[in-house]
Structures are given as structure tokens and as C-alpha cells.
């Protein structure tokens, strides 16, 4: 500590600070992606309901699962989900901030897993919308 006062932070300490800042950028990006994905899921589920209004669903179990979701979840469900998402990320991240400065450098594994999970969610929803839509276009 005394050494740091006289010589400034060591190169290792600087590297740690930079790594933590980079980790914060990644967390912000994941948070943003999560909020946008929840909004997108709500919009797409809504569009599915509009598409099949008055008609039986044409296609896959995925589509049926989404229609079930639409009938179960209230309108505007993405708002509360965004709040839960934000609080969840804070909960995962904050305990590390309270530890000593000697804590290990954060790993990118968790943000990567969250990012992949969100991407899979979006892809599933898009497939659920895309399959019946293609079938309808084929019938027209």
C-alpha cells in the first residue's frame, strides 16, 4: 500500500483495474441484450397471437408452447422480466464488489453463458414464428 502511494499503482494493479472495467462493459452489454430480448419475445408472442387469431395454430410444438405462453402471461410481461433481470444481474455481481481487492479477476464464462442463453431464447421464438408463417405463405 505504501509502495503504491509513492510509486503509483503497479502495472499488475492497473491491469486488474482495466480487466474489471472491461468486465463491466460486458455485463452492461449482456444486460442490454436481455432487456431487448424480453421486449422482442413479448412482441413476437403478440404477433403470433395476431397471426393465428380465430384459426387453429398450424405448426410446431414450439408455436403451441408460445401460444400457451401468450394465454398465460399478462400483457406487458416484459417490463417485470426486465426488472427481475436487472436485479438478478446486480445480485450476481455485487457480492464480488464487497470483497477485498485481492479477489480473482472476473471470468467471462458467466456473461458468455447468459448471452448464449438469451440468443437461444430469441432463436427459438423466431423459429416458432417462422415455421407457421412459411407454411401460411406456402398456402397463399
Amino acid at each position: 500500500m505504501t509502495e503504491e502511494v509513492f510509486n503509483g499503482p503497479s502495472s499488475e494493479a492497473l491491469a486488474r483495474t482495466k480487466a474489471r472495467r472491461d468486465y463491466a462493459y460486458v455485463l452492461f452489454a449482456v444486460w442490454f441484450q436481455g432487456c431487448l430480448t424480453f421486449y422482442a419475445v413479448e412482441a413476437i408472442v403478440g404477433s403470433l397471437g395476431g397471426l393465428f387469431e380465430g384459426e387453429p395454430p398450424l405448426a410446431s410444438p414450439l408455436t403451441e408452447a408460445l401460444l400457451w405462453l401468450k394465454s398465460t402471461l399478462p400483457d406487458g410481461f416484459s417490463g417485470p422480466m426486465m426488472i427481475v433481470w436487472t436485479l438478478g444481474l446486480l445480485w450476481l455481481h455485487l457480492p464480488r464488489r464487497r470483497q477485498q481487492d485481492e479477489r480473482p479477476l472476473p471470468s467471462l464464462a458467466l456473461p458468455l453463458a447468459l448471452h448464449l442463453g438469451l440468443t437461444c431464447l430469441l432463436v427459438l421464438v423466431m423459429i416458432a414464428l417462422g415455421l407457421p408463417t412459411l407454411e401460411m405463405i406456402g398456402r397463399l
Partner: protein
Amino acid sequence: MVTLTPSTRRLLSWHAGAWVWAHGCLTLYLFDWGVRYHDDVARQCHLKLPPFGRALSELTPYFQFPSTWLWLTLLWTVVLWRVTRLQEGELQLARPFALHILMQSLLIWLAVAISFLFYIPTGYLG
């Protein structure tokens, strides 16, 4: 637990960096196509678009393929190169990863806007 040699780590980091770059270029290509496709459908069917779709339509005049895509790809390459740090020959992937996630937001925007085209009752499939 597998321990990687420094040269393997370097190679893998450059490999991952190259995928991030390629993913960005493809995303921009898809976005460029999507903006024009979205606008075509909206015009042909005289759709009243939601805010997401309107914002996308307002971008259409600026998207002239391939020049816009090429410029955006160049910009993406420069930004990615500037933000990526190199440490002993190994790319530090946190910042490129953050950029990659933000870039994916463009795809989500596109997906939402295009899904609305099918939603509007008087729309594409109506």
C-alpha cells in the same frame, strides 16, 4: 483441467476475434438487407408501423447496397481493432465480446420489426 500453451492461447484468441469480426460483418449485411426488405413490404401493403418499424423505415434512404454495407463494415473493423487490447500477442476478448453483444441488438431490432409486419391484421398475410 487442460492447460493451454501460450501459443495455443494466442491462436485461439485470434480465432475468436476473427469470428467476432465476421459475425459483425454478416450482421451488418443482414441488417442492410432487412431495412430495405422491411421498407418494401411496408410500402407495398401501406402498413401503419409501430415505433420500432417506423424508426427502421426512416433509416432506409441511407441504406444503399453495397456501399453502405461496405462503409459500415469498414467502420466496424476500425472500431473493433481500436478497442481490442493485445497482451503478449494474445487478444483480450472482453471488449470485442461486449461489442459483439451490442451488435446483436441490431438483429433483435430487425427481428421485432419484421415480426410486426406479420402481426398487423391488414398486413403482409392479411
